Structure formats: C-alpha cells, structure tokens
C-alpha cells in the first residue's frame, strides 16, 4: 500500500529542470498529494503562467511514480492560491545562493520589487551588496539579471513573485 509519504519522497528526487539544485518540492510547485485506495492525485501550481518547465515536470512525475505498480495517477493544475517565492524554504534559498543564483528577498510580503522599488541584491559570489539591475527578465521566467558593482560579475536573481 502506497502512502503519501512515499509519494512526497519520490517527488523530492525530481530536480527542477532549470535550477537542478532544487527539487520540485523545495520549489513549492507541489501543493497537495491525495491518495484514495490506489488513486493518487497530485496537485501542482505553476511558478509562472508560461513556465515551459511545467510540462517537463509533469512528465518526470509520471515517469518517477511508475515505480509504484498498479496506481492510477492524476495530475491537476491549480492557479489559486498563486505561487509565491515565499514558498521557497530557507534551505532552498541557501542552495540557490551556493549555486550562484541570488535568492528572492525574504520580505516578499511587501513585494517591493513588484512596485518598482529597486533594492540592492547581494552578489552570490563576493557577497557585496552593491549590485545593479541589468534586466528584469533573465534567462528564465523566474529570474532577473543583475551585475555586481564590486566584482563586476553578472548574476541571476530569483525575483520576487
């Protein structure tokens, strides 16, 4: 008999295709796992509406859960409540930093960035706080591009949402 815990453990093995240091559970896209008899329903929410990685994640989930024989898997997408960077755990933030991506600011409740207030983002390499926004849109939907004014390296910032 498969338990919810088994499913969560399995999902934790699936890396985010664009930021492989994070798994999809840490990213906060898995909202719910429900099991009734051998029917497993997993509820997901996209980070960004057009995130091209969602399809890939769904395929990976289907592939990974094949290890449980005889289950009926159903994937559901919900948009409410909308995904927010507040759902990224502290450990995940540290992993992002170590990977070279500046994690989203803690104070996401204020959503200052959304209102055009630019804050100084810490450079994930030299840890200096003197950075400059290069572009609000980076290599993927969830990132903005900054440049450190101290070491001059450009870096990705996981922007607040």
């Amino acid at each position: 008999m498969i338990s919810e815990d088994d499913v969560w453990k399995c999902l934790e093995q699936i890396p985010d295709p664009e930021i492989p240091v994070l798994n999809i559970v840490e990213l906060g896209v898995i909202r719910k796992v429900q099991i009734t008899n051998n029917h497993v329903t997993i509820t997901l929410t996209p980070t960004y509406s057009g995130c091209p990685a969602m399809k890939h994640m769904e395929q990976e989930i289907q592939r990974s859960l094949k290890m449980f024989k005889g289950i009926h898997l159903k994937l559901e997408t919900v948009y409410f409540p909308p995904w927010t960077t507040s759902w990224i755990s502290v450990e995940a933030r540290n992993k992002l930093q170590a990977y070279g991506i500046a994690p989203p600011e803690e104070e996401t409740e204020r959503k200052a960035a959304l209102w055009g207030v630019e804050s100084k983002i810490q450079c994930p390499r030299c840890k200096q706080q003197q950075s400059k926004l290069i572009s609000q849109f980076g290599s993927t939907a969830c990132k903005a591009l900054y440049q450190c004014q101290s070491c001059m390296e450009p870096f990705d910032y996981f922007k607040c949402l």
Partner: protein
Amino acid sequence: MANALFNYILRLADSTIILAQRDAEWTGHGPYLEEDLALTNIALDLFGRGKALLEYAAKLEAKGRTEDDLAFFRSERQYFNAIITELPKGDYAFTMLRHAIVDTFDLLLYSALMSSTDETLKGIASKTCKEIQYHQRHSFAWIKRFGLGTEESARRVSDALEQLWPFTDDLFDQAPAEVDLINAGIIPDRSSLKPAWQNHILNLFNEVHLKPNTEAFMQSGSIKGIHTEHLGHLLAEMQALPRMYPNATW
C-alpha cells in the same frame, strides 16, 4: 449564461495570445540581447495565461474541443481579440507603447477579476496580476526612455501614439450578453475601468510630453469579430503547422 461566459473567456484568451504572438515576433530580433530575452519571457507569460484561459473555455464549452483546437482552428471572424493586439509589431517604440496601453488595461481588468465569483477565473487572474505588474514596469520604463530620450526616439513614440490611440476605445467595448455576467459578479463592468485607465495612461503621457489626439476617429468591432487585415496574416503564420499536420505532436 454558460455561453456568455464561454464567449467572454474566449475574448480574454484571444487578446492574450494574439499579443503574445506579436511579442514573440521579436524573438531573435530584439534591439539587444537582454531585451530579446525580456520580450520573449513576456510572450511566454502571455501564452501561459492564454493557455489557461483556453483550457477553461474548452471545459465550459464541453464539446470535446481542446485549447489547441480553439487556438489553431478558428479563423479571423471567430477571433475576438482587441484590435490593438493584432496590429503589426512596428518599431520598438510601437511595441512598447502598445504594451504600456494594454498592460495598464489588463492590470485593472484582471485585478477586478480577482474578486470574481467564478473560482477558476479568480485563480487565473490572481496568477496573472503579479506578472502584469512586471510587464507594466518594463513597458513604462521604455516609454519614459523614448519620450525623454533623443529627438528621434520622442518622434518614434509620438508616431506610435498617433497610430495606436484610435484603437483604445475598442478595449472597453462590452457585448450585450456580458450584462448577465456583470450582474452575477463574475466580471467587472468595463466602463468602470475606464477612468482609472485614463488616469494612469495620461499621467504617463504627461510625464513624457505625449499627447493623444482626442479628435481621432475611434475604431472598434472586435466584440463582433471584426478586425483589420493584419489578423489574417498573423493567424496564417501562427496556425500553419497544426493546419498542415492536424495531429502533429511535439
């Protein structure tokens, strides 16, 4: 009322994917790399919103059509996108001014839809609103840059305004069948959004010394599926592959 809601969702979806398609035309042609990425990301956000809306429309219709069928197998007269979204991409001033106009409208519309009594619509609106704020920040920054930049950039954005302004009323048109949806608290009355839209957009224009021609003849018709000649060309390109290979998957 189910039919009115289907038509309404289709209308939202169409404006979204047609604008996305125009934005996507800049992919690989942006003025510089960061802008190329920016506009491509914005187009992706819009395609994502469009897909969510079309999925919902397909579900409401319940005739076995999928979101892809709705996107790729309808012709011009069956499309209800606001005319402003279908106009050719023009230069960068034109593209950014159109975005500023539509972003401001969308932010008001989808903010209002966040309190819809329809749960699905409310969910999609909550998701998309946060993204529109980023889009608007981007487009407004460009309008300031153009408007307060060189003589040439100011001329370009002023020309763009002359071409775009006559299509702004069309955004606020309302179908008679939408009245029931308004009364049921599912959608906002579009005319109630107009003062705030005018306020935001005219403030931006004032800041950069832009003046719309308020005497201009206002074009509308999207609510009846009436379009400029440009939509057909856009659809021909967007729909070519699924129409040539109807069961293609990728």
